[in-house]
Every structure is written in structure tokens, then in C-alpha cells.
């Protein structure tokens, strides 16, 4: 059994505000080892840190979230990637699911409860 909280979590987003919010939320639910990246390439370079969770922005100025998602899944299929988007678009969500993102998070409606529930779902999946 892998306790998600003991593994590093990545936040990949070029919006420092959002990154800070999410960081706060994650700390709130007990995740301490949080790495933040401003673009996908940096994230990929650090993938050896073996994160259990990656919060990935869909629309970054320097990289395409979907593209990064595929790369992450290609190198570390077991990592849980949460797709974060400010787009309230179902299509992006579906695309993300197809590419192996387990969940997606709408930035506009995010609360600590939502993230908490999401992480605990992952956790229970791991247990199962």
C-alpha cells in the first residue's frame, strides 16, 4: 500500500496564483512534499522524483497540457495525473480522460473538499 501523502506531488502551472492556492490546499490535506513547475518540460525532467500525484494545467503558455500528460503517462503510467483547467469544457475533460488523466479539476470551482475527495479516491483505488 502506497500512502499518497508520503510521496511527492507535482503542480505544473504557469499561474503562480493558482499554484499557490493548490499548494495551500494540498498542504491542508497533509501532503508536504510539493514541487511546483512553470512548464511541462521542467516537470518531465523531475519525473524521477517519483511523484504519486501531478496536478497539470491544461493551458500553459509554453506547453500543451495534453501533450505533457501523454509524456508523463508514457514514462510513468502509474502516476495519478489530475488535469486542471479553467475551461469549463467537457471536451477537454474527455480528452484528458482518454489520455490517461484519472481526474480533472475545474479551477473555477475548486475547493479543498473537492481536492481532498479526489486524493482520497486515488488512495482507496490504490488500496483496492
Amino acid at each position: 500500500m502506497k500512502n499518497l501523502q508520503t510521496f511527492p506531488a507535482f503542480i505544473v502551472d504557469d499561474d503562480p496564483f493558482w499554484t499557490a492556492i493548490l499548494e495551500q490546499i494540498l498542504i491542508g490535506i497533509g501532503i508536504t512534499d510539493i514541487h511546483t513547475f512553470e512548464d511541462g518540460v521542467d516537470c518531465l525532467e523531475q519525473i524521477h522524483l517519483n511523484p504519486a500525484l501531478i496536478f497539470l494545467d491544461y493551458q500553459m503558455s509554453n506547453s500543451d497540457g495534453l501533450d505533457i500528460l501523454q509524456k508523463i503517462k508514457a514514462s510513468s503510467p502509474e502516476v495519478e495525473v489530475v488535469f486542471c483547467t479553467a475551461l469549463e469544457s467537457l471536451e477537454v475533460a474527455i480528452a484528458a480522460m482518454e489520455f490517461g488523466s484519472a481526474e480533472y479539476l475545474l479551477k473555477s470551482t475548486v475547493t479543498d473538499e473537492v481536492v481532498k475527495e479526489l486524493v482520497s479516491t486515488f488512495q482507496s483505488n490504490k488500496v483496492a
Partner: protein
Amino acid sequence: MEVSNRHFDRIFPFHFAMNSQGVLDFYGPGIGKMMGEVKGLHFDDLFEIERPTGTLFDFRLLSITADRTYLLKSKSSKETLFRGQFEFFPQDEVLIFLGSPWFSSIEELASNDLTISDFAPLDPLVDLLHLVKNQELVTTDLKELIDTMSVQKARLEELSYVASANSDGILFMDERGYITYVNEGYLRQTGYEAAEVLGRLPLDLGKGEETSQSEVEDMLTSFFKKESFKKEIKHYRKDGTWFWARINGQVVLNRKGEFLHFFTLVEDVSEERKSQQKVLEFEQVYRKVLEFSGDNVWELEFRNGQTFFSYKAQNFRGLRFNELENAGKKWFSQLHPEDQHLLIENDQNYKSGKISSHHLEYRILMENGGLKWVKDRGIVIERDPKGFPVKIIGTHSDITEQKASEKELLHLNKKLGSILNGLRDVIWSATYPDMKAIFFTPSVEELFEIDMDTMLKDNSLWREIIHPDDKGVIEEILREIEVKKDYSKEFRIITPSGRLKWVQSKGKIIVEDGDAAQVNGILIDITDRKRTETLLKSKDELKNILIEISSTYINIDLKEVDQKIHASLKKIGEFVTADRAYIFDYNLAEDTCSCTYEWCAEGISEEIENTQNVPLEFVPNWVEAHSKGEPFIVEDTAQLLQMGMEGLHEILEPQGIQSLIAIPMRYNEELLGFVGFDSVKTQHTYSQKEIELLFVFAQMLVNVQRRKQARTRIVKQEEKFRNIITNMNLGLLEVDLEEKVLHANQTFCLMAGVPTEELVGKKATDLLLDEGSKQILQEKSKSRKSGISDSYELKYRKPDGEYRWWLISGAPNYNDKNELIGSIGIHLDITEQKKLEEELMRQREEAEKSKRAKEIFFANMSHEIRTPMNAIVGMGDQLAKTSLNPQQERYMAAIQNSANHLMVIIKDILDLSKLEAGKMTIESIGFKPVELLDHIVGMMTARAESKGLDFFIETRDPRVCDVLIGDPIRINQILLNLLSNAIKFTEKGEVTIKMELLEDAERQQKMALRVRDTGIGMDEGFIQKGFEKYVQEDSTITRKYGGTGLGLSITQELVHLMGGSMDIVSQKGKGTEISIFLSFEKGDLSDLPVDAPKYIDHELIRGKKILVVDDNEFNRMVASTVLEQNEVQIGLATNGKEAVEELKKSKYDLVLMDMQMPVMDGVMATKIIREDLKSDIPVVALTAFAMKDDEEKYMAQGMSAFLAKPFQEEDLLHTISLLLLGKDAPMIPKKKEEAVSDPPFARYSVEGLERLSNGNPEFISKMMNLFKDTASATVVELQAAFESEKFDEVRKLAHRLKPSVKMLAIGEISEEIVELESGIVSEGNSERMSYLMTHIIEELQWVIQDINSKDY
């Protein structure tokens, strides 16, 4: 494959054909040559069937035994045999014998005056004859040889006998064998002397080395037994040579039988021996020769019945011969049982001397089960003295393959034969260039009706039968064939029996050895095809005529109907070779019929005059047929008598009619008439096709007549309508495409005041209209050309100068062919209506004018009152800030109360004018109903208490949602109105307010707000009258209670605007309860408007220089006072012009600009500031024109912000603070109405952050600063991107910004930023996007500033 008689002739020159009677029909050239002319002779006259024996001629039997070989014997003296088979051709009912004469030698052939070339090259007989010939030659040689030999042999024998007397040796010997006598002969034979011989033993003298010892011993044995002997031995001479000696030894006894001596005759047989050897050698050679000519050579010795086979017998594979077996017996045993009789017969014939040679063909069964055909030929080579054969020699040849190929050939012939004879077309061959017929297939006889022989003999015949008109075709053919080497022609022939046939002839030159040798071709009877073609052609022609007629009819001008019908009668009449064509109409009501159209050929009398109202009883046959829908046809009048139709004959005969046809004309089931055609000069038989097409013609006639009738009806109807129009006093005018009058009715002429004769032919527009109207009309006529009809009004000036108004309904006018020929207009004089209408218009305009005047009045009043009120309120406020003594304070309070009261009245009036102008809008924003209620109660409590009334909230339904969507200001206004009325009109008792939930739907709530009082009440009439404006129930009330009387009606209007209703229950003197019912959407907290606290930055304002522009001194004073208190330097200007001058002179930070000023108003001044001075100094519009769309109007004219007068001090400072904030001064968000002090809504919120961090101030501080930094950067980026039109960049920035805006709940722009993100790429810098950009940036800047000032 085309097979012709020519082929037959080649393959079976000896064929002949018989009909079922057995009479010969045609035959091959070979038969002709052998038997002469045999056509017409019976089979039995010519032949008997030799084999199968006993068969008699039986056509049927022969027809079905095609696979049998027959041997026919000619009944001529030569008794020639014909071998072949019969082939039956069922189509032609002929039986053809396919075979050839069966000769066993060339001589036989020659004796029949035939040569090999009379046979088909493939005929096996030819091969056979060649073989026989060869063999004959060999046999002849052999015979000669044998004959020579026999002669020699006989001669030798003779010689030997003679010599015996002279030259044979004779010896006598005693009992012991010693020679006692020798003659001269022996001495000559041996060369001894007599003395040397006598007393010696013969053996000692004659025996030598090669003398056969056994023969000698035999002789000695015979000698000592005293027996005779005869031996041939080699006898030696004295010189040692030897000769063949035949030794005849004989004992000579005396009469007593006692031995006298032994007599020995020695014959020299050397020569004989030599001959014998020669014969032997010859026979061997002969055998070999035979063996070459056959597979086996055999030899039969009749004396002992022995048969010898050469080794070649082995060649019959599958037949093994045992050496011990008699080959002949074995052979016979293997013979096919059916063929055994052949050999037996043959043997007997030989034995009886009937034949000296034979030739048989029979079948041998092989041991492996196979079967071989054998050709067995033989000849006698030795006879006994009586001439009977002793020895026969012969050959066996394997002819199995030959037989097979023969069979195949026959099969092929059979096939070819059936095809050739089955052919209807004629295949022919002729010499080239003289075109002499060589050959025709039998079908030629049928085609030309000339028999084949005649055809072949007389070359000119077939030229003669060519139709006289087509004779030239021969030359054409010859020419064509010379040039093109082939040809194809169609021409007519007339056969001897007088029949006309169409023939297609095709031919082609056949080149042999490079020369054009002959022409082969085919003749096809195409009469049927031609007949069909002609029929088709005639049908087509008739069809074409009909099509032509129908096309004429389709576009027929109905005036021309008669002429066209006449023409078509002629056309069809001529086509069917009729001499008279006519149409009759039936009048079934009167039982008559009448001719309506008639056409007659030249020389034929017209009958139309005589055929009017003909009683139907005169033409019963016609009527009878026609009523059934059938044509009435008389093919040949002459035959009517025979058919027992005297009556009809009597009618037609006198008119000289030979044939006639009358086709009924029917429409639906109704019989209208008929169209008929009489043939007078010739008789005409109508084909089915013709009749069908004539029916079509009849139908066309019906059609065109009906159209004519319809047309007549239309004309009548037209007339009717014209009359109606005239009677209804409608002017009717028809003009052509050039606007020239075609027709004008009387009414029109009266209307126009122009007589008809002056109108018709004139250009209506020129005649009737002035320039202005002409233009209208030209447009109308243009639209007529596109098929548009419409109505319009026109002012017409009559010649007498009177103006009339016309309503004209115009429509394009088409002729029968649907061509536009002009337009038609119906004119109605509407001058009276028009006058009425003008009057109404004028009245309405006046009403409008007065309404506008009212509005202007209200606006002016608003301005005129507000301006001084502004001063009163402003100055009052300022005065109240100074230190006043109690009395002064009381006065002050009174002033302010009055001012407030006045403001309410003004607001009522303004509201009403807004309502009337439809400019009042209802907002949909979130509000908290409970708060609203509490607030109002709070506002009114003091007033109620001052009158000593009980004032409280009676019900506050807890089910009412916390937040509803609606217009809180207006609800506030309504309740204030109701409450203030209630308080006003209640002297004692209570005033209560209730809020009740009536309906609670998923998304909506309906509630009732009730205000109840115990006041004076209203009577029923007043309530029902509705709350007329400016009216109070009793004018005394006004005096007593004051007020504008507008309250209730405004309230009602507002309630209606909100989709609600109002109910009043009142009793005079008892009290009133007014209920309003309103529905609201449910909302939540997020729907509540975020109202920022007024942001006033005193530091920022301090020391700034502001220009106050207002023509009203008090207003300038109010503004100045407020500003000066905030340490602002003031500049003053009384109008726009001064302001501009002032701005040119000194530098200002901001301008407060009144909008309505003399000399130059604020709008103009701002324009100059912006355009001429190119200054972006913030300009705040101040106006008392607080109408709905004022704000937008001023903002669009370059103002930076807008303030309605009278303004509150803090509003002014707030506006100024914002404007002074930066270069990009934000616009001031729309001010809320002052009547309600809305609960303060924050423009942003840290609640979200607090929630996330459990109120961790560090986090909040960090986030706020983070937001401040990122948002500041984003604002700059946004502006840059938007200005350089990088809209996608804008989109991305907006997108990135979105979550933080949401998180900080910056309500003002949280929707707008979504809108910006989704719309910017497609809309670019549209007005909306520009606004969003500005607004978002402004809001962000405000938030940033606020965060800054709050120092998180």
C-alpha cells in the same frame, strides 16, 4: 457458318435430295454427270438399296437412320454402287443422300465416265482407288511373272520328256547292283566311256561329296527290297562336277515275277531346279511387296485350307497368334460376328470361280476388347488346270483410323448439310468479273421462285427479276465491287409470280492466287423488315403530323382556331389519302348532328351546307359505334351489299365514298362529335396504328374546342367583371408596356376627368401625372414587369385643377401566351378617406407634440428644480456643519426636511415621466428580501412614531428565500410609497406590513407584500377608476394631506413592469389593505451585487487642481466647498467656453463639468478639450438630467465619469479619487439610486482564501500580494496585447486570470472575464470587447489599489 449448296457440291458432289414423296429435288454435279437429269424422278426409278439387304425405300425409315451406311445400286446398266448415308432436314422436309459411288478400281471409275476430280478431295474412295490402283499395278506385274513362269515350267517339262528319250541316262543293273547296261545319254551326262561303266556299281560312279547320304541309303534300301524309288540327288561326273539328277529306279520282272534287272532312269534336273529356285525367290520378293502395301500378308492354300500370315500380323496389336494354330481359323474367330458372312461369301465366290480377286472391309475384335477395321484384299495366284483357284494371296490393312476420320467427315457433312439446307438466306458464288453463277444454296429457289438449274444456266435471269426502278443497282454493285472489293445493297425484285420482295445483297471478291477469282455473297429476303420499316415510317409521319398539329394547338391563338383546325384536317386528310375530312358536332339533345369543319381535296364537292342538323337516325351506324367510344369504319363500300348492309350502302354509294373512318370525339364520358375521313378516289384500309393516332387527333380537337369554349367563357366573365368594376365605381385602366392606354372604363374617365377618346392610345403617365407621381408609377411598372402586384396611393390632379387621392391596385397583365403585355389598374377614389386620415395624422402629431412638450417640461422642471435644490441641499449640508444655535438648527432641519420632501416629489414626477416614456427599466439582481423589509421599516419607523401610530412587521414568512432576483430599488420604492401613503392617511391606529410566500416553485417564489392601515380608506369608485394620475380621491385630500397624487399610479405601473399585480381592499373610514403580488427567481449569495465601499483617497486628492465648471453659482459653491475642505485648488468657469480658455491657460488635474450651460455646454466643451486641446484630463459630467440613458450618452462623448446632481459629497470625492488614481482613469460604475442605501457589497473578497487556509493571515497576505503582483503584470500585458491586436494572447491572459478573479470573488468582472476569454478571438476589438477590456482592467486596478491601501 454459312453453308450453301456450293459447299455441298464440293464436299458431296454425289449428293441428292428427295422430298417426302421420294422425288429427287436437287443433286450434286457428280450425280448429274453420271445419271444426267434426274430431278423429278423417283428414287425407286434410279436406285435400289443393296445393303442393308432387303431394305426398300421408305422415306420415314431413311429419315431416322442417319447413322447407317447404305449401299445403293443404280438401276442403270452399269449397276454402280453408291455408298453413303441419308440425312434428313426437317425444316425443308428433304432427305439428302450424302455419299459417293463405290468403285473398286480406277477402271470402274473410268467406265462410268468419271475422273478422280469428280470426287470431293476428301472422299476416302479417292484414297482407296489410288491404293487399289497401285496394288493393281503390282498384282499385274506379279501375274505376268507367274504366267511367264508357268509357261517356262511347262516348256521345261516338255523338254525333259523329250530329252529323256534322247539325253536321259538309262542304266540296267543285276541283282547285286552291277551295271549291265548303259546308254549314250548316261555317258553324255557323266563323261564316262561305256567300258568304264559296265560292271561297276552306280554308287561308285555318281556319288560325291555333296551327294545326300540319306538319299543314297534310301535308294539302296529300295534297291535291295526290289522297290521302285525316285530321288533327286547330286550326281557326280567323271570330271568331278555334278548335276541334279532325278533318279527313277524300278525293278523289271518277267512275267513270272522273277527278277530280270533293275532299271534306272537318270534325269538331269539342274535346269528345273534352277527355275524352281527362281520362282521361290520371286515369291519371296512378291511377299515383301505385298507386305508393304498392307499390314499383313496372307496366303491361302485351298488344297489344304492352310493360311499363312506374314510376321506383320503382329501389327494387329492385341491379337496374338499361336504358331501351332491355324492363322486363318484364328482370324476368322476374331471376326466381328456381323461381318463373318463376308468372308464366308468371299470364300465361296473364290471356290466357285466367281471372283479372282476380292476387296472387303470388316471388323476384327481385338483380344483387349477393342475393335479394328480391316481392309482385306486378295487375288488368286495359282489355279488348278480347271481354272479353279488353288492359292490366294492377299493383305490385311488396318483402316481403323481411316474409318474414324471418314465417320468424322460424315458427321461434319451432316452438320454442314443441315445448316446449309436450313438456311433461308441464299449463299451464292459467281465468277468474276463476268458474274456467271457458280453456285446457289437451295433457298434461292424460294427467294427468286426460279429453280436452281435455271438459275445456274441463265445468268441474265436474276437481273431480269430486279424491280424496274432498281435495275441500276447492278451497275452500282459492279462499280462498288470493283472499287471496294465488296458491296452491300438493298433492292426490290419481282418474282415470276409477281410478288415484290426486298432483297439485301452482299458480296465480296474472293482472291485466289492473287487474282480475283470469284465473288461470294449472300442474298437476304428483307421484305418483312422493309414492310415494318415502311409501316413504322408511315406511323412516324402521322405521329409527326400530330406532333406538329399539337404544337400548333398548344400555342394556338384562339382567334385562329378555325383556320388551324381546317389546316390540320387537310394535313391529316391528305396523309391518309382521304378526299374529305370533316368534324361533326353531336347535338344529342335534339338528336341531330352538324358538320362544323370540312376540308375537301381537289375535285371533291363540299357537303358542309348539306350536313347541318342531320337527324341521327340518318347515321345510326356512326352513333352506335361512337357512343361505345369506337371508331366507325367502312373499309370498302362495295362490299357492304355482300355484308348485308344495304342501308349503309345506300348512304355512301351515291356520294361515291369508297372508304371512310369516323373517330368519336369524347370528353370524359360525354360524346361531343366525331372527326371523319372519306376516301372517294381510292379505297383505304386503316391500320391499327393509324386509327390510334387518329384518336389522338380527335382528342386534340376536343381539347382545342374545349379551350375555345373556356376562352369564350372567360371573355364573358371578363365582361362581367368589367361591368362589376364599372358598377362599383372603380376606375379600370389597362396600359401596354409603354404605358399607352389600351382600355379605360367609364368610371375611370369620370374619375380622371378625361374622355375615353382622349385616353386610349395615349401614354397614361404623360397625360395624367405630374413629375412626382410619374416617378412612382415608373417604379411600379418596373415591378409589374417582375410580376409583382400591389396597391399604392397617388395624388391626382384633375384637368380642372382639383386634387384627388386614388388608391390604385395594379397588377401585371398577361396575354394568353403568358407574355407580359402591360399592366392593369383598378382605381378607387379615396380622397375623402385621405382627408380624414390627414386630419387624424395632424391630430396625432399635435398629440405627440404636446406629449413631447410635457416630457420637455418634466425634464426642464427636473433641471430647474434640481439645480436650486442642489444648492439648497448642498449648502444646507455645509451650513449644518457650521456651529449653529438651537434655533438655527431647527430652521436648518426644517429646510432640509422641506428639501427632501421636494426631492421626493421631483423623483415621483421623474419616475412617472420615465414610466410614460417607457424608459423605466427593471433590473434583475440579487437582493435579500428580509433585509429589504427591515430597512424600509427602519426608514419609516420614525415617521410613523411621530404620528403616534403602531408600525410593525406583521408577518415575515420564513420560507421566503434569503436571496431573490429582482429589482430591490423598485420594490423599495413601491413599499415606501405604500407605507408613506398609509402613514400619511392614518391618524390613529396602526400601519403594518406583511411578507407572505404564496407559491414556492423549484426556481421561483411568488409572494405577497401587504401594507395595511387603519386610515381614511377609499371608496369603491375611486379604486375602480384606477389610480388616475395627478388625481387624489378628493381635492380636499390634497389640501389636507399634500402629495402629488402620483404615488399609487407609479406604484401600480412599477408592479406591472415587474410582472406583478396589485389588489386594494379598502373601506371608507375603516382602513385600507394594499397587496402587491410579485414573482421572483430564486437566487443565492453569489447573485448579490458586490458594492464596493466608497473609495476616497484624501491624500491623493490633496493639493490637486480641479476646474469646476457650472453656470449655477450655488452649484459651483457646493462643489468648491467640498473640494476646498479636501485641500484641493479650485478653478472656476461659468460655461464651456470659459472652461476651455481656463484649461488652455493653466494646468488642471480634473474637470467637473456641468452639462447644461449657456454659451457652450459641457458636451461641446469636452469635445474641444479632447479634440482640440488633445487633453486626456479626466472630465466628470455633472448633470441634473438624470434620465436613464444619460450616463451612457455622456460617457460616449468623452466624459470620464458621470455624477447626477444633486450629488453626495462622498460620491464626488469617490469619483475624483478614482479618476486621479492613474493615467488610465477608471470609469465610475453606475451609481445606485440614492433612495436606498444598499447594503455594502465588497468588490472583492478574501473569504475564499480564508476558507482555504482557515483564516491563516500569512497565507492571505501572501496570496493578496501575489494577486497584486500577477494582476498588475497581467493588466499591463492585457493592455499591450489588446492594443497590438494579439487577441489570442488576450484570451490566454484572461484565461489565466480567471481562477484568481473567481477566488477573490471580484464579482464585477468575474462574468466579464469569461466573456472576454470566449469572445475576444472572434470579435477582436469590437465595442463590447473594448468595453470589457476597459472595465476589467479598471476593476482590477481598483482591486489592486485597494489591496495596496489595505496593506495585507
